């Protein structure tokens, strides 16, 4: 049995590297993300209600819905957790830094292995596909409806928006550079089912990706990525996001030199869990909205 939803939301941190990073990305969508933590607190902020009896009813219905496997919420949560394969030991070493002190990248170089472009492309595209599948599990649109997903991206707000911004920035721009979209498209075009199969995240989530064979799953991944490239490049251009602006913001909490960008990307990759963190918040919000409307 996985952890109860109320515990997952209660245990979301209010500080740490993940939260610092998400706050640093807030300039893209100012005020969109307020790091809602705590189950009861989230019920109050989502519904705008504060009657304790009403909150209890909403919470109980939300818990019932989450615990019903057929409703897909647990699959969505598992996907958000699985694509965020963090290195707990390294994360703990980084956390051992004094609060308020910048994390020195130099101190962790020996524990970090930058990803090759191919691996990074798989990472980026799988996170996007996980988002698509989790979206459909939570909101109930059939699992292969890319069109609905793209339309819904326009409606993305709050914790979903900041997750997509982080995806573009820390899994696209920083590790792959300003032409990350073309690089990823090219990378996925040259990829073989074997390349995919040697990727641990793909092996974990492949059963949830539409397609009877690995080749068809690869096609699905490519099509999904292709369909959101316009949206991704809009985020970058509309907000004037560049590697330089990102680095300037990240200097606020990590100490690094600009010739070590691949290591910076690796550090962020293993020591943050922004997908799981904001995914938990997205799921809780939609679950509570449904519970509130059904009681």
């Amino acid at each position: 049995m996985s952890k109860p939803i109320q515990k997952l939301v209660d245990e979301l941190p209010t500080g740490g590297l993940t939260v610092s990073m998400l706050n640093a990305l807030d300039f893209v969508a100012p005020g969109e993300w307020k790091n809602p933590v705590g189950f009861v607190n989230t019920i109050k902020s989502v519904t705008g209600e504060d009657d304790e009896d009403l909150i209890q009813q909403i919470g109980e219905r939300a818990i019932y819905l989450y615990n019903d496997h057929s409703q897909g919420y647990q699959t969505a949560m598992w996907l958000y957790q699985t694509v965020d394969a963090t290195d707990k030991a390294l994360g703990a070493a980084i956390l051992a830094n004094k609060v308020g002190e910048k994390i020195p990248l130099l101190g962790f170089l020996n524990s970090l292995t930058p990803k090759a472009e191919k691996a990074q492309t798989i990472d980026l595209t799988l996170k996007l596909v996980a988002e698509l599948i989790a979206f459909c599990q939570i909101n109930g649109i059939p699992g292969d409806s890319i069109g609905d997903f793209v339309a819904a991206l326009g409606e993305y707000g709050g914790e979903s928006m900041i997750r997509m911004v982080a995806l573009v920035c820390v899994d696209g721009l920083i590790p792959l550079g300003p032409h990350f979209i073309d690089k990823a498209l090219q990378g996925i075009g040259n990829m073989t089912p074997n390349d995919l199969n040697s990727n641990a995240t793909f092996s974990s989530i492949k059963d949830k990706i539409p397609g009877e064979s690995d080749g068809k799953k690869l096609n699905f991944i490519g099509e999904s990525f292709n369909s959101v490239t316009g949206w991704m490049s809009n985020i970058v251009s509309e907000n004037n996001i560049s590697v330089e602006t990102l680095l300037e913001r990240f200097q606020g909490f990590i100490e690094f030199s600009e010739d070590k960008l691949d290591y910076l990307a690796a550090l962020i990759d293993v020591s943050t869990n922004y997908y799981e963190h904001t995914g938990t918040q997205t799921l809780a919000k939609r679950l509570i909205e449904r519970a509130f409307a059904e009681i």
Partner: protein
Amino acid sequence: MGIKQRGIKILTAILLSFLLLTTACAQATPDRFTAVQQESTRKGSGLAVAKNATQGSEFNKFFPTSSDEYQRVFTQEKKGFAEANLKKAGKVIAQLAISDTTSTPAAAAKFDKSTEKIAGYPSLEIGTTQTAILVSNKYQVKVISKDPTFKTGDRADWIQKFNLDGLASLK
């Protein structure tokens, strides 16, 4: 027994009791959702939504439609449930929802206390943001304010913009 050894023994005893105390506490702090967590996991899955609940996709056609001023954007469509955002000038001002109360008998039973009607159906105000009606003793229609400018009267107006007769004829 040397002082040092005795010291170690005492320390061990203290540590052990501390450990027991903290583990006991960790296990024995039920909160307001402990009971429902146990209940909802004990009986297995398939409990939250009734098997014979109407598919959410069946509800979509009864929702108010978009106009020049207002946009309706569907956000959720699950078994027994459909919900849409109501937007004005790009901002969500309300949420519109239909749910099948077959899965939630208490949701239907609360209308026993209703003294008001909207469009001929029993209605209730819930909390400070919701207006709800019960159609055919089965389908709950709710309009939920998401903006202070969208008031109680607006909720009643928008409930009447659903195709309620169509919903009532749904089996």
